[in-house]
């Protein structure tokens, strides 16, 4: 039986040998953190973060902590937007995402002193939803929606981005509150049949993206599903490697504990919550309705209005700062 004492002892031994082990680290899998990696840094088998990462994060505006992200609950849900895609009909999407998620949740962890067994996270499809926007609502229900964009990609990179996962989290703990995934289906994807030599394999892409959904970051292992580069015409990313399994098991070990930063819990672990796949603040199929209370209300001109507001606020704040010195950044309306 696993105990906190065993885990603490393992953590102590790990910490004791951390520096020397880093040089010979066989594990390349990495976890997503609440602080962005410096863009010039690339994860490798030697490390997931640069040596001065904590200092770098503290220097950001606003200062950030490098906390790994994680789902607290043993059960997490997702939903597919009911229109799905002309390339990927709803039923096909259901089957494809069920297969992709199950690759991660179906692993068997083998973790020495901490025992072995399945990863302590499961995923449930709550069914088709109406909402076709990525959003997180602190005052209304949510859905962890998967959206296909057939006709136009709503962001500034329509010709390059194929898949985009947005993770909403608590910056003080790293706990994931919400995750939404968008697929750019204005681009041709190979969903079934023979994969052309230059084809983009849909299953490979979503297997990689679902890894991000769980909090996995890119791996330094070039054979892993979570490696940052995909070779067209191949299906190798469909299959998890030992490195991928090590990664998901480190976040969701069989004993149901969540390894977190010492600043989050002195023991370095938090127990999972009992299975409840309901999204934070409840489940709803529809997108949130504008509340009309603040500048973040969901409307079509939000970007232009917010940009103008930010620019105006910045002019005022900049003037004050020059008089009074630095101060914290502006908070938005909806959290």
């Amino acid at each position: 039986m696993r105990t906190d004492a065993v885990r603490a002892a393992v953590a102590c031994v790990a910490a004791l040998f951390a520096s020397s082990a880093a040089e010979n680290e066989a594990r390349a899998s990495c976890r997503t953190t609440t602080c962005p990696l410096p863009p010039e840094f690339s994860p490798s088998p030697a490390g997931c973060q640069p040596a001065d990462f904590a200092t770098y994060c503290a220097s950001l505006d606003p200062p950030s902590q490098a906390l790994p992200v994680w789902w607290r609950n043993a059960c997490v849900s997702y939903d597919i937007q009911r229109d799905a895609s002309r390339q990927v009909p709803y039923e096909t999407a259901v089957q494809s995402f069920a297969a992709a998620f199950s690759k991660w949740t179906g692993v068997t962890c083998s973790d020495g002193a901490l025992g072995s067994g399945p990863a302590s996270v499961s995923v449930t499809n709550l069914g088709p939803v109406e909402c076709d926007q990525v959003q997180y609502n602190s005052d209304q229900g949510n859905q962890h929606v998967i959206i296909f964009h057939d006709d136009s990609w709503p962001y500034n990179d329509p010709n390059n981005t194929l898949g985009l996962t947005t993770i909403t989290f608590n910056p003080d703990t790293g706990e994931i509150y919400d995750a939404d995934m968008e697929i750019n289906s204005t681009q041709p994807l190979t969903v079934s049949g023979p994969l052309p030599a230059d084809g983009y394999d849909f299953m490979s892409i979503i297997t990689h993206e679902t890894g991000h959904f769980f909090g996995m970051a890119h791996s330094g292992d070039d054979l892993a599903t979570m490696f940052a580069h995909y070779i067209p015409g191949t299906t190798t990313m469909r299959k998890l490697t030992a490195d991928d399994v090590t990664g998901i098991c480190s976040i969701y070990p069989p004993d149901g504990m969540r390894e977190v930063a010492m600043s989050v819990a002195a023991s370095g672990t938090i127990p999972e919550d009992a299975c409840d796949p309901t999204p934070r603040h409840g489940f709803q199929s529809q997108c949130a309705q504008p509340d009309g209370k603040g500048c973040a209300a969901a409307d079509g001109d939000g970007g232009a209005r917010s940009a103008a507001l930010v620019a105006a606020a910045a002019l005022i704040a900049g003037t004050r700062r020059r008089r009074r010195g630095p101060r914290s950044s502006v908070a938005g309306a909806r959290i």
Partner: protein
Amino acid sequence: MDARASVSIAVTWDTLLRESDAAAIVTPVEARSVWEAGRIYTYTRVHVDRAIAGELGASGERWVRTMGGVVGKIGQLVEGEAVLAVGRSSLLFLRAGPAGTLDVTARGQGQFPVVADVDPAKPARLVRSNATGALLPPRAVAGATSRLAADVLHGRVVEEAAGDIAAAWSRAHAD
């Protein structure tokens, strides 16, 4: 605020030039994050250290918009976005965004951090950004140049790269 979850096709040199309105070496000065229709966007005020190509206006500072950020007790990660850290210079390829702000063309692929050489006597160089999400090679198009922007600029001395960008810009924006 972080960037860990996207899959993108690697942008070609020609596309990056053609889809940009300007290119410049910039240094972020401050950042502000706000909610917009359920998403967090971060607006970063950047000082334009060197305008290389295109029109950036007369002001020495501009606001650049990226997805993700932290507002109060909520953070959002959108992988593949440019990572603009205060005080850290980058070459950015930029396009017009909402209300006079700018977006980074091709998101993280339009950012090339400026990295000083360990030898201070040597000039700074550009490096490719790794905040790009997973990258896929572009499909080959008959008759088209397929050099990737990252291959053209990675490791280049800033001065040399700026000259190449300015020269190629004229061709890319000839019509």
